[in-house]
């Protein structure tokens, strides 16, 4: 693929072992993209991934909980206070293990992405691809937590008999008692998705850059072998 980016040391060429020439940018680009993916993932730690908003007549400004990979922010106190009528556990008890390891996990994924920069063959994909799993695991785990939460109503509690078990939707509108709920993914999650996409594109360019190198090495090796064989034959 031709990428017309002028002024990037267009006079500098990469000479492959088979004697073919490649542009410098072909090799800088995948590295940059993989590092960008790692950076996006790191930034996402500081942004909310998901938000639940609750609306009821007596809460004109609504109530909100912002979910970060490692903590919750917002009106948990009030929501917990309301949920005690249903005997539900505090919001903060959901996904404790996941939150405790999430930062380490993201750092490891980021480091793997950067490691992939230095691996110049197909094995780079093995280091980079785990990052795909992160947003997937996040969504699956969130659903599980929400399911468990909505199914933890205590029938012995004040209003436990009046509300049926429910699972708050991952996205969009829901209804619990007099509350309308609205859930939505937040910038942190979108950054993680963006990181995955950037990483996939990076891998595509990685392949575009290094496959010719790997092939050229093979060809060079093969032709050397052929030369040696010819010498031996001669």
């Amino acid at each position, binding site marked *: 693929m031709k*990428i017309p980016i002028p002024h990037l040391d267009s006079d500098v060429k990469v000479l492959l072992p088979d004697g073919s020439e490649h542009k410098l940018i072909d090799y800088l680009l995948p590295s940059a993209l993989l590092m960008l993916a790692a950076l996006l993932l790191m930034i996402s730690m500081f942004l909310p991934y998901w938000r639940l908003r609750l609306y009821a007549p007596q809460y004109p400004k609504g109530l909100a909980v912002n979910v970060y990979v490692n903590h919750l922010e917002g009106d948990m106190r009030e929501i917990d206070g309301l949920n005690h009528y249903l005997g539900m556990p505090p919001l903060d008890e959901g996904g404790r293990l996941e939150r405790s390891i999430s930062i380490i996990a993201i750092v490891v994924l980021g480091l793997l992405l950067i490691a992939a920069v230095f691996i110049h063959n197909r094995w780079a994909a093995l280091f980079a691809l785990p990052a795909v799993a992160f947003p997937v695991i996040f969504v699956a785990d969130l659903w599980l937590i929400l399911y468990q939460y909505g199914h933890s109503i205590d029938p012995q509690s004040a209003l436990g008999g009046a509300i049926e078990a429910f699972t708050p939707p991952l996205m969009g509108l829901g209804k619990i008692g007099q509350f309308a709920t*609205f859930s939505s993914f937040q910038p942190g999650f979108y950054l993680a998705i963006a990181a995955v996409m950037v990483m996939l594109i990076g891998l595509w360019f990685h392949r575009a850059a290094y496959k010719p190198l790997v092939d050229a090495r093979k060809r060079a090796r093969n032709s050397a072998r052929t030369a040696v064989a010819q010498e031996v034959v001669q």
Partner: protein
Amino acid sequence: MRRFLSLIVVSLVLLAACDSEPSSMPTVDTGATGATAVTGALPSDAAAIATERGLSPDDIYAALKTYTPSGKTDPYIMISSGGQSGQVLVIGVPSMRILKVIGVFTPEPWQGYGFGGSGDKVLAGGKVNDKDVLWGDTHHPSISETDGSYDGQFAFINDKANARLAVIDLRDFSTKQIIKNPNAINDHGGAFVTPNTEYVIEGPQYASPIGWRYAPLDQYKDKYRGLISFWAFDRTRGRVDVAKSFQIELPPYWQDLCDAGKKVSDGWVFCNSFNTELATGGVEAGNPPYEAGTTKNDTDYLHIINWKKADAVFKAGKVEQINGIAVIRMQTAIDEGLLYFTPEPKSPHGADVTPGGEFVVVGGKLDPHVTIYSVSKMLAAIEAGGLQKDTYGVPVIPLDKAMEAQVELGLGPLHTVYDDRGYAYTSLFLDSAVARWTLGGPYADKHPEKAWTLVQKLPVQYNIGHIAAVEGDTATPGGQFVVALNKWSIDRFANVGPLLPQNFQLVDIAKGGEQMKVLYDMPIGMAEPHYAQIIKADRLKPYEVYPEVGWDAEQMKVDPNAITKADQAKVVREGNQVEVWMTVVRSHFVPEQVKVKQGDHVIWHLTNIERTRDATHGFALSGYNINLSLEPGKTETIEFDAVLPGTFTYYCTEFCSALHLEMLGYFLVEP
């Protein structure tokens, strides 16, 4: 590459589009959407209502000026005296909706004020000779000032009946301190603050022997005295500091209303008076009654007091301690040049300093004029010296050396407030009208009319006493509205029996010239308020909920006896003392059963651990006269002897939740 970048952007936009969140509750129509601005003629249905109700275009104008749709708040807040209710009223302007009744000198159950909580301590400060006096006659509220403008931090008010002063903290609009003036039995000229609230001024009214002692009335001239108090205010603590306060002894002339000078007159205080006749009444013995005796002379004296110099004299120790407070004796005040007089027409009323501090306006009451005194002329006369002295030796500035102008307004001029374009507004009690008139001097260019001229007299219903304007007694008046505080309402409201509500009338002063209009009548059915002040709402910065769970609202800090979680609740017995730490939250108390033995001493700490606005709980304990208001975060402590045996309940007195009725507990006192 560009194609790939745009691919990323498009994907993100697509993802973000899934997140188009409703800005308000999605399933409930708030009724606020879809409204468009009305222009041109009235909509046909509104016109039909106007016809049906017989509303004139003026009525419609007034309705549009005052109607405040649900959910909109008032741009101005009026802090009003609650008269003989002993309370203070908070009213929104221009909607004229009562927002709050603040318990001040009288217990107020809805605030849990005076029924077992920390309000008891505040009310105890107002004891008179160690006896509870659980009412007051509140007269003149005064919002704290910085540089002559309201700063919205505190409000002060006096109790005329017992010479007391109260401090209200405007962070939570509740009373924090009541002090009893130890040397006076009544007051009137308070509260008024100095431009930076250095002192809260409490002027006297009916003279009595200083220190509140006995003296027969035939010794009136020698033994009876007026007394003006300067209460030092400590903003950090939010309390009057009696040790740093002082009083000045005055002749027994029945000083009436005061106002602190500001800007060019900063450092001075002006008070009118109305009994230079030294009348002592006794109509039953054939003497002239007070109403005649005190109005005999053609003039009384405007008192001109140099409080900054008095402050220096006090700090130099030229005082006498009487009943625990420093008093500057009258002779010292004269010798040190703290006190001057100038004549004012016949039984005057009010002494209202103009926004820039240049003039003092005094209402004639029995004289149809307001008299305008020039501060610079008076100061020049004092500087020049050689003044004649009155009976008590106080130097008197001749009227022609003090007066700037006189404006004839009508009958019964009392109080004057100002706007932002050079108009003054004076209440005319006998004419039952508000007079708009023009100021001169530096204000002459602000209005098109001639200086010192009556512009309009607007009839009000009826018998206006005080008058309030938006920040109209400060260095920065706001204009827009005046409120006439009418003493009689006669036919303005439906008949509710022989005791009638007072009538607060909102007056539109937004347009100049003769275009003042009455907009709205607001009944006050619980007292006869005197003065009120109107502050711009955005100057007030009250709490939405108390800053932390466990807040001692009386001390404005975290209470050491607060608990923040239900699992910290406990009951501890030590000998015959039982101490309870209780949490209060929707919809339960913890603990819900408290058992003691008859005669136990009970100390009971309650903390509302809520953080949600308006999640207030009450705590009423049957049989023990206890009722608290526990706003979110507040901690209160009650203490009593469980003398009554039996079964008692405590329950929440604020309808807090769907399970409010279930929010109760049993208090068992075993015989």
